[in-house]
């Protein structure tokens, strides 16, 4: 996980952070935010799709099984 994020960040930083920007004191913050946005934005998309896929699987299982399927939260950070 850590390695993946660091790698993704390095890729984002190298592609995004070409020094062609007008820079005020907040520029570093702007740039890092775009880079972090790439990583965590991807997670938001995956989460959104994952909940759809999971809903589909759960629904599918309900059609085929008599026992209800136990639910787990997909918010491990809370």
């Amino acid at each position, binding site marked *: *996980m*850590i390695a993946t*994020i*660091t790698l993704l*960040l390095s890729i984002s*930083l190298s592609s*995004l*952070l070409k*020094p*062609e*920007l*007008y*820079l005020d*004191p*907040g*520029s*570093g*913050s*702007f*740039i*890092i*935010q*775009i*880079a*972090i*946005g*790439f*990583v*965590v*934005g*991807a*997670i*938001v*998309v995956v989460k*959104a799709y994952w909940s759809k896929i999971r809903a589909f699987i759960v629904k599918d299982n309900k059609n085929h099984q008599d026992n209800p399927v136990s639910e787990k939260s997909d918010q491990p*950070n*809370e």
Partner: protein
Amino acid sequence: MLMDSGLYQDLISNDLLIPHQPADIQPAIIETAYLIIQPEIIPFISYPYEWSFSQLKDAALTTLAVQKAALAKGMVLKDASAYNIQFHNSKPIFIDTLSFEAYQEGTPWVAYRQFCQHFLAPLALMAHTDERLSKLLRVYIYGIPLDLTSKLLPIRTRLSPSLMMHIHLHASAQKRYADQTHKKSAQSKKKLSRNSFIGIIDNLESTVRKLKWNSGDTEWADYYKNTNYSTTATSQKQQIITAFLEQIQPKMVWDLGANDGTFSRLASNQGIFTVAFDIDPSAVENNYLQTKSYSETHILPLQMDLTNPSPSIGWHSQEREGLLERGPADALLALALIHHLAIGNNVPLPELAEFFYEAGHWLVIEFIPKSDSQVQKLLAGRKDIFTDYHQEGFESTFAETFEIIEKQRIPESERFLYLMKRHR
């Protein structure tokens, strides 16, 4: 847009924003004025360097909750300053009603750096390095610089992906791009998608939630387990203070040296707004956690070193008020306090009387003689140079600035409680 979008109602119903009314005041410049508003009054303004860990953490989570609610209605917060949060009815609440603007897809969160410097940096330092580093907020009024935070945090925090991104890499990026000048047009081409925007807010929220501080091991954390009061003395002391408060009928009480707020609650439980100051971060933290678990609304625990109280700071020394500028309180409680200041900190009694005179109209003060075991502890291992510290000396000194209305001995102890009213 705040009102039309329904965001105001959402925030008010979730206790996230200070309610306001349109004010019946004619604007000075009619052409540029849209509306003058009168927000609900907050009885006591406090600052982030006076908050305990959980207070700052809850303030951070409130800011993010406001941002999330705003985004759902197509708006964003343009400020994420910790000074935009105040404790109202003991809960953190956003007070800058004018901080909202329309969200434009693709733009990054303009307050991201401010959030990191005002909230994430001090919380990470308190959780991972030392709780006392929150005092850096008093030095750095615009938030703790991220390069300094990165230096002060232990190396292991680089293994946390969130702290690595929001603090360490953020600090590096600021340094790397600080001195270069390039075309502004290129910056506008870099977009932050809505999903990325949401991702950053979510990630900041989970990062803040994960930060923890154990408040168990400071000097005063077990104070009430180590006092020399009998049960009768404690209950008598409470009865005397309650009777004094009934005489005073204050609207606002400052309890100076409140520890975890045991005696502050004699006032706050009667609906008197009470600020419970203490020097000890654990005591303030425990007090705050107690106000949360019992949903108390009239008590505000704050950290304050009375030998070096919050000064006026910021531009023209007028942006953030010092402690005394926020007073005077209607009544002060100074219980088991003055021996610490007079003997522990060498503050002369006339200086103490002068400070209390400036801080409050009424004073409920406890005098503890030298013969008391707690005072003996303070005197142990040092020369007793405090020749004026005795009951007659205390009374004659305070009589110069206060009228002594009533004096009562606490049964089964050598201690006295005084009710005093300051001379005009």
